[in-house]
């Protein structure tokens, strides 16, 4: 069969772009290869590891389990929208200061989950944090520091909420 392609309008981090992609290409691959947003990492490509987590209309989803063509008409947000090297997002700052990342491969996905989680749970318990992180695999940092980073991030975000 010839490779079916489709031209789609994607809205990523508030920016519209038009790309022509094979219909079988996942959103994760299109973000990385077409839009050059390589902050979104690709690990298992079967929905287990969580490295590719992005937001679709503000809710965390696996970008390896979405076809890019399915994202048309939706708002996609990636880790690139959180902060910059000079102005880290408070959650990124908390991960940095608590050694919540070592190699950093799983971190972008975890950040996207954690920022969304803290929106709904401004003062989470440790158990809630662990359940929220359950959809992410980290193979080198160790989860203790990640949990600590999330606790710290929650504290950093709380005063701003008034």
């Amino acid at each position, binding site marked *: *069969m010839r490779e079916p392609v489709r031209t789609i309008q994607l809205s990523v981090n508030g920016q519209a772009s038009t790309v022509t992609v094979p*219909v*079988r290409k*996942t959103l994760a691959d299109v973000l990385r290869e077409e839009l050059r947003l390589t902050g979104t990492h690709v690990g298992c490509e079967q*929905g287990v590891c969580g490295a590719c987590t992005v937001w679709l209309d503000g*809710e965390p*989803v696996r970008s390896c389990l979405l076809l890019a*063509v*399915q994202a048309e008409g939706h708002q996609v947000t990636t880790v690139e929208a959180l902060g910059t090297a000079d102005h880290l997002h408070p959650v990124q700052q908390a991960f940095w200061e608590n050694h919540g990342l070592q190699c950093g491969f799983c971190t972008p996905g975890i950040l996207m989950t954690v920022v969304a*989680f803290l929106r709904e749970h401004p003062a989470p318990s440790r158990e809630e944090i662990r359940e929220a992180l359950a959809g992410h695999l980290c193979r080198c940092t160790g989860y203790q520091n990640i949990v600590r980073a999330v606790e710290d991030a929650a504290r950093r975000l709380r005063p701003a909420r008034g």
Partner: protein
Amino acid sequence: MKPQVFAYHDPSSVEEALELLARHGPGAKVLAGGQSLLPLLNLRLARPEVLVDINRIDSLDYLAEESGWLRVGARVRQRWVERDPAVRRAVPLLAEAVRYVGHVQIRNRGTVCGSLAHADPAAELPAVAVAVGARMVARSRAGAREIPAEEFFTGPLSTALSPDELLVEARFPCSPPGWGWAFVEVSNRHGDYALCAVAAGVCVADGRVRDARLAYAGAGPVPVRLPQAETALREGWPLEDALRAACSEARRLLEPEADIHASADFRRHLAGVLTERVVRLAYRRAVDGAGGARA
């Protein structure tokens, strides 16, 4: 790119989707949330020629209580069911069990009907459907039919749906007064498929179990209902004797498979232990009048 080449259609109406299914037959797969299908495509365990994506069909996006039934349209995400307080009141077992499905990132996309149509025997929602006596509404160009949950699941990853049919809705009966419901599960990690899970409902009057429903995931090729254990709960007294009898029926009758995660014996053992745990919880909720509210 991981998946094999396929043709992709994203119709905006049920009629168009049914037309596509009729035209392409068994070579077509329905794409709903995609949280089971996309991994299969990426691993090339599934190689459909045509994908019929139903995510643009707005008319399948409804969650409504009507004449004693909770109607869940085919595009309703698991996360919606998890968050909706009306579901907790109407079908508390569904509200409790849905939290065990994958992780939040999966439930944000995965659909209730998709999980039912995928029919993994270790999945939570098929067991819930069997426990409460849900009905599946299937449509094809020829018309619509309703399939009781117990006839819907025909084998691992197999259902009574024919290739030209679309599961457009799942109907869950609302919990009648006097009933308490509970769902318990043992899995390797939170969010994994169940090694064994039990969905239970008991109707209690004057302290006695008057009626009971028990369904198991991870304990056979399909979600298994155990009428013998239900009878044991109804007829046994005192409650401790009834529980013992029900657990022994579960261990005696269930025929779980062994796989890399657990032996058949261990699963059978779990079925016994979880039967006791889940019935105690459902009983307490029935007595407290809490239905299925989380303790």
